[in-house]
């Protein structure tokens, strides 16, 4: 009787975890795509700066938008990877430190790739698909 009850309750929990895990994987994959876009935006922005296509306040405003986009990507990947709130805040702050921000994006992207590959996703140059 006790065994039966235990067997009845058991399937409920993994199902809930699996849904949660799948949601986290989608979140991490979305964050990774945003991170890749943010790295590309950064390269484009630096080229525009060097060629003086963008200057002054317009350049600063665009840089800020790209930085905020990168922060959103970091936040999504952190949530997907199950990072704690304090870690999320730390990574958000580090996203505004020159050079370290690229390191943060690469580190989180590698972690995300591992997570998604382990879950059977296909991860390519421009992001992952299930």
């Amino acid at each position, binding site marked *: 009787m006790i065994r039966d009850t235990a067997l009845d309750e058991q399937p409920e929990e993994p199902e809930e975890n699996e849904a949660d895990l799948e949601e986290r994987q989608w979140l991490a994959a979305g964050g990774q795509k945003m991170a890749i876009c943010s790295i590309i935006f950064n390269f484009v922005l630096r080229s525009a700066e060097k060629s003086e296509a963008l200057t002054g306040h317009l350049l600063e405003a665009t840089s800020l938008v790209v930085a905020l986009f990168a*922060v959103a990507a970091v936040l999504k990947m952190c949530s997907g990877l199950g990072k704690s709130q304090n870690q*999320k805040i730390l990574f958000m702050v580090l996203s505004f430190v020159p050079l370290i921000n690229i390191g943060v994006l690469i580190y989180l992207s590698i972690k995300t790739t591992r997570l998604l590959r382990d879950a059977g996703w296909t991860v390519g140059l421009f992001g992952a698909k299930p």
Partner: protein
Amino acid sequence: MMLFLWLSLLFMPVSAALSGLGVWLLAGGEQQEDRELFRNFICLLAVFMLLYWGTVNTDSVRMYTDPQFRAQTEMDANPIYNAFKDFSPDDHRTLHEFLILRMSQGATLSEAFLQARPLLDQMANNRLGFADQKSRVEWGKVTADTLRELQTVDPELCYRVLSSQPLDSQTLARVFSVANTEAFQQAVAHVYESAGRGIRHERTPGDTPVEFNAAAREFHTISDSIAKQFGEPVAEQVARKVFPEQPTEPPAPLCAARIAQLDAMLERPQAMAAMLIDSALR
């Protein structure tokens, strides 16, 4: 400059770090949704960016962090620089370029002004014709006092200034007293200010016309007295106004004669003195 660059580089990291701290304190250990976390972070980031930008760009902070701003502020506070800026854009540009060059070579603003003294001297002499009588007399007095100071130190140095030969920066820094430097700067500023008004045909109250022939007679009287005191050749040289690089007579009597000439001119009433000084120095 380095500090200003560092403050610019640290703008985003410091603002982000303060926002991160703010978000952490606001959360108080409670779990927040990503959306809420992001929104709080962005709001605080905007606040701290504005605060940082506002603080770093205040004049009092920039005086410490931005040498270019400090130099410009100090230059703007200088009476000569202001007079040049207001009354002669061309001379102002020349002076500005000279000062910036000297300061880029490591001189302070006061040292740069000291090194600009021969240039200022020449520019003020060129403007003397437009200046009012009071400023001309002031300029004549400063010139006489300067020559007297140099004569005491070294008559050859005095002759070099008399013949418009350049002095090296070390000598310029050594030979002039603080009081003389201040009087010189004030006199240059006054000459430029009054010359600016003179060019715009604004008459200075108190200026009285002087008959040319009367002035010529006074000039000859002074020349005769110089000739009696220092001899004919020295008096002739002093009357000629332009002094050759190599002195035709010993520098000491030439310099003394020039000082005596200017002093004699300054003893006359203001209107006459102004005309005589203008004719002697310009």
